[in-house]
Structure formats: C-alpha cells, structure tokens
C-alpha cells in the first residue's frame, strides 16, 4: 500500500515539472499520477512509430528521447530532443488524428511515465475548470515546443462542456451571475451609485446649489420612503404604494403582451411579403413618429373607459417598436438560408417556421427591449393625463398637491421596476437564443 503510494507520489513530482500540469492542485496531480505507469526503455529502443495507434501520452522521467514529426504535421522544426519533464505522445489528445504523427526513439536508457489519453480526458472532465486549463496548455505546448500549426493541434473536447437541452439556459444564467459576482463589476456599480447619491446629498442639502436647493433632498426622501408614518402618505409601509406599483405593472404587462402578440406577427408579415409591405408600410411609417402625447385626446374620445385609453396609449409605441424591428429582422436574414432550406425540400410554411422566425429572433428581442422601455415611457405619459392609480399618476398628483418627496419616490420606483422588466426580457431572449449567446461567448473569449 505504502509502496504504491510512493510510486504515485514520485509520478506526481514528475508531473509537477511538466508544463501542462504545472498549474494543477495537489489533489488533481495525485489523481492523474495514479493513472500513470513507469516504464523503462534501453538505448535506441523505439517508443512508437508514425502511424501507430495513439493511446497514451508520455512524460520523460530521465534520459533523452528523439522526437521526429512526419512531414504531414507541417512542423517548422520536426526533430526535437526531449529531456526530463518533457511531455510527448500528445496525438492521443488530438481531435482529428488517432494515430502517431511522429517517431519517438530513446537515445539513452530512458525512464518514462505513460498515461492513457482517454482516462486522462475523463479525469479532466470531472473538473472542467482545471481540465480546460490543462487542455489549453497542451495546445500551447504543441504549437510552441513542437512548432506544429494550430490546425493540427486541435485537441479533443472535454465533454463536460457539452450539456444538452434546457438545463443549459438556467446553468448559463447562473454561471454568468457567479462570474459577475467574482468580477470587479459589482463593486464599480456600487461606487457609481454611491457617487450619484453623494452628489445628490451634497448639492441639495449641504452646498444648497442654486436650482438644486429647491429639490427634495436625499435624506428627506429616504426618510419619507422608509417611514411607517409618512408625512405625505406614501412609503414602503403603505398598501397604497404597492397598489400603484401593481396597477402600473399590470397596465404595462397588458400593453406589452398585446404589442408583442400583434407586433411580432405583423412585423414578420411585413418582412416576408413584399406586397403586404408596399400596402401597409407607408401608412405605418407615417403613424410611427407621432408622439404618444399627441394621441391622448383621440384615445380619450375613442375609449370611454380610462383604463382602456391608458393601455391603448401604452401599447401604441411598443407596437411600433416591436413591428419595425421584427420586420428589419426578417429582412436581415441572409438569402442563402432560405435558398438552402428550399434545396433541402422545405415548403413555404416550413421555411417561415424554421428559417424566418428563428432568423429574425435576435432583432425581435432587440425590438422587445425597446418596446418594454417605451411602454413605461408612454405609460407615465398616459397616467399623467388620465387615470386614478399608477406611478405616473402618483408623480403628477404629488406635484399638484406639493408633495415633493413623493415625486422622487415615484421616479425611483419607476426606474427600478423598469430596469427589472427590461432585464427579464433580456434573460428570456438569452434563453431562447442559446445559439447566439454561445456564439457571442466564444467571440468574447
């Protein structure tokens, strides 16, 4: 038992000197060492020859190995002499070649550790983070020490990276959150907020700068907001506060839902049918720039109920944003995709479903991001004009009733709620377009 342990320990000591394994934890090194077997070769004994099956990788313990790559490997310097700590036999980890690309012969009596490539990969897969580091070090070693071009040095993938199906979306988001919390970004964000709040406090309450001194101060607002007995009747302890938030969210939700359900198909159809576009698009483009406030009087005339008028106004700008971006999305699709689908025997409706809709999705989600933003914008405009609840209504009535801190509470609440809804749309988009998030993630590496 202890003898075996000593062997493993001695192999681990050798691995620690070998470039690909240097960075590993002691525990991982021991595990890899346990896969290794020590073998001895006499002078001029071949380890393997070109074309042999590549199963194992080797680490030189002592002695010298001559390593001669075949011309097909396109190495700049095909022959190298390897001493203690050198790693060779890496063809066992290559993606495309399962056979030896080189001839390895011992030039002195030599001792070598051999490790089975498949077993090594399986072990690395069990700890993908460390595993990926080892693999990338292997790639560097092959291109640098063996002067083999990248193309040949493509290593096998660690399968742990390929997870299938829906788990991926949630994992991806969780992983991103984890990465985010480890990066300096959250702290920078906190510093940004602190600077902003500090400026507000100082300019209003300490320095009393002109114009600023008329504003409600930070302390006053926070006190009011967190007070169980607010002076002006609205704080996180009053049910009314949540009623206003709830009403606004409900209105935006209805308007956003309608804008999506009507705007996406409408935009798809605009992009898909040239004829339809010729009829409809000029009218669409004439109506689109009309500001929401200009619609208010007509909306009130059109809808007797205020609630419907508010939702209609909120819906309108969202609808235009969604429809326009969806149309641009369809038009952005490379014609090759449609042609390829035609070649492969897809019918017109299949092309629509499998090419047009997914192809336009990135633009559709850009549209939805804009749409949720403008829906909050128009909601407040609509609530200020008519309505009896909602955050826009709070802001407007607080003004007429001289409750200044409440105005700011309404504004900050709007900002926070708007941010959350917008983030939800983004997460939904990432979830539906994993092909794109993964592509972008690769591009960012």
């Amino acid at each position, binding site marked *: 038992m202890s003898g075996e342990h000593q062997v493993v320990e001695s192999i681990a000591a050798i691995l620690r000197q070998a470039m690909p394994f240097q960075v590993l934890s002691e525990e991982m090194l021991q595990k890899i060492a346990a896969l290794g077997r020590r073998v001895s070769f006499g002078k001029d004994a071949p380890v393997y020859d070109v074309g042999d099956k590549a199963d194992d990788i080797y680490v030189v313990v002592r002695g010298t190995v001559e390593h001669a790559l075949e011309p097909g490997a396109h190495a700049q310097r095909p022959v190298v002499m390897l001493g203690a700590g050198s790693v060779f036999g890496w063809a066992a980890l290559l993606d495309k070649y399962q056979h030896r690309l080189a001839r390895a012969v011992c030039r002195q009596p030599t001792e070598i550790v051999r490790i089975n490539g498949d077993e090594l990969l399986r072990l690395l897969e069990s700890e993908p983070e460390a595993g990926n580091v080892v693999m990338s070090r292997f790639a560097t070693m092959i291109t640098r020490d063996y002067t083999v071009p990248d193309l040949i040095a493509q290593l096998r993938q660690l399968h742990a990276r390929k997870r299938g199906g829906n788990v991926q979306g949630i994992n991806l988001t969780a992983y991103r959150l984890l990465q985010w919390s480890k990066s300096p970004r959250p702290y920078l964000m906190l510093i940004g907020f602190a600077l902003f709040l500090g400026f507000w406090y100082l300019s209003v309450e300490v320095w009393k700068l002109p114009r600023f001194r008329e504003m409600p101060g930070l302390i006053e607002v926070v006190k009011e907001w967190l007070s169980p007995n607010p002076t002006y009747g609205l704080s996180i302890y009053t049910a009314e506060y949540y009623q206003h938030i709830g009403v606004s969210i409900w209105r935006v939700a209805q308007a956003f839902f309608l804008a999506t359900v009507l705007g996406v198909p409408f935009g798809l159809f605009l992009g898909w049918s040239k004829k339809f576009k010729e009829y409809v698009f000029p009218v669409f483009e004439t109506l689109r720039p009309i500001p929401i406030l200009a619609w208010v009087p007509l909306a009130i005339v059109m809808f007797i109920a205020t609630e419907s008028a508010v939702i209609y106004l909120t819906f309108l700008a969202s609808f235009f944003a969604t429809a326009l971006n969806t149309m641009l999305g369809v038009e952005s699709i490379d014609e*090759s995709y449609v042609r*390829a689908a035609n070649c*492969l025997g897809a019918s017109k409706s*299949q092309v629509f479903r499998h090419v047009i809709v*997914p192809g336009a999705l990135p633009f559709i989600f850009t549209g939805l991001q804009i749409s949720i933003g403008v829906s909050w914008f128009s909601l407040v405009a609509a609530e200020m004009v008519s309505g009896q609840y909602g955050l826009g209504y709070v802001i407007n009535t607080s003004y007429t009733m001289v409750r200044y801190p409440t105005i700011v509470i309404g504004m900050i609440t709007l900002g926070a709620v708007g941010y959350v809804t917008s983030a939800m749309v983004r997460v939904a988009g990432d979830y539906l377009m994993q092909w794109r998030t993964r*592509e972008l993630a*690769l591009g960012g590496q």
Partner: protein
Amino acid sequence: MSAARVAPRSQTGTTRGAIVIDDVVKIYDPDGAAVMAVDHCSLDIEAGEICMIVGPSGCGKTTLLNAIAGFHEITSGRILLDGEVLCSSEKPKADPGSDRIVVFQNGALFPWKTNLDNVAFGPLMQGELNKSDALEKARGMMADAGLAGVEHNFPGEVSSGMRRRVEIVRALMNEPKVLLLDEPYRALDSLTKSVMHEALLEIYYKNKVTIFFITHDLEEAIFLGHKVAIMTTRPCKPKKILEVDIPHPRDYGVLTSKRFRELMEETNDAVHEEALKAFAAGEKEG
C-alpha cells in the same frame, strides 16, 4: 439522344446525376441595360463526375449554378438532369429540389440549429423520415465523416472547416443526384483547404454523387476534378475543357506528380488570360 448521355461512365460507375447544359443564355436586364452573363454555354457533365468550373471572380459561373439549382431564370437554352428538362425557354426557372443541393460560398448552416438538427433537416422537411430515424441517420452520417462529438454544438461553436463538412453531410443526407458547390473553400486558409480537399474526396468516394464545383483556383480544380471547364469572363462560356487523366482515388501526392504539373502548364495560360480580361473589364467599369 438523352439515353446516350445518361449512360454510366465506367470510371465512376454511377448512373444518376448526368447534367446537360445546352446552349444556355442568361441576360440580366437591370434598368434596361442588358448585360449578358452567360453566352450560349454548352457543357455535358457525366453521372458521378466531379466537374470543376474555373473562372475569374464575377465571370458568371454562379449564374450557371443558380440556374441549375433553380434560384434564377435562364433567358434561353435548356438544362437537363438525367434526361429530364429542369429549365428551358418555356419554363425559365427550375424548381429547387433535394436532388440538387447547393453548398454555399459563405456557408448556410442554420446557426440557430445544432449541427445534428441541421443535418437532419432535409429528410424531416420532406417527411421522408420521422424525427428519431432522421436523427439516427444524421448521427451515423456525421460519425462516418469524422464529425462525431460536435452533434450538439451549434455551427458557430466549431471551426470553419468543420462547418463545411457538416454542410456537405447535410446535403448528402438527402441522397442528392448532384452537389453544387459554390467556391466552398474560398474563405479557408490554405492548410485547412488541403485537409478539406482530402475530406471531400473521401466523402465522394463513399457516395459517388455528381459534383459541380465552382472555383477560381486552378490547382484545386485539377486536383479534385475529372473534368475542368475553364470559363471565359463575362459573358461566361467554356473556353477550354480539360479531361484530367490522373486516376482516382487521389491524394496529396498528386500535387507533386509530373502529370499534374503538365496539366497545370497546359491550362495556366488560358486561366491567366481570362483573369487579365476580367481585370481590364473591371478597370473599365470602375
């Protein structure tokens, strides 16, 4: 007449996929200024043959490919596939179909589908196979082409050389008569290209489809093709047709053989002449 043309070629042993391009003319008419892209072009491609179309960029090669694939109309003449008329003066645009599949210059794998779903796309759309059979077949064909392990990756996650292979496998899933390749390796570096050539030949030896391959690379053309058609620059028609008598299967050793060099020398002038003409025409237009 057509029976004689459909006769199998002893060299390839394939009976399907013979293309006859018969006196095809294509005139583009943008803004009333007629531009002749293809000028009375005739070319016979035998079943199971690799026919390489060589010409300078923008010479009208792709117009010919689009006519066979059914993306564009022809002005006159006709194109036959195994004796059946694809398009003619009466029916200027062929119907696109899974018997003639195009592999596009910039690649047209659907980036939103995994490689496996891309490969299974054709039979699923045509209703040839049910979902599990289609995926099964796709997995098998990908494994045969050395693409095991990337099935569940999206195309954007694998190398460009691998994407091309996936795209060719996607085409072969439909057992097409003809593969139409439009400079598929143009964007690849020369090392990847050489690997791709051998991979293509390997796939070809297994499947024996007719290949209509557009390129501007003469070396690539002679290395791969049974037949090399060197086209004139706009309007496009065959200037010289070369039967490459180097026996298949070929490997990269061919490139350094005496016969290969002879064939290169024999054709290089013709290609260079057209390139110069194309360049001069470009200067004039510019």
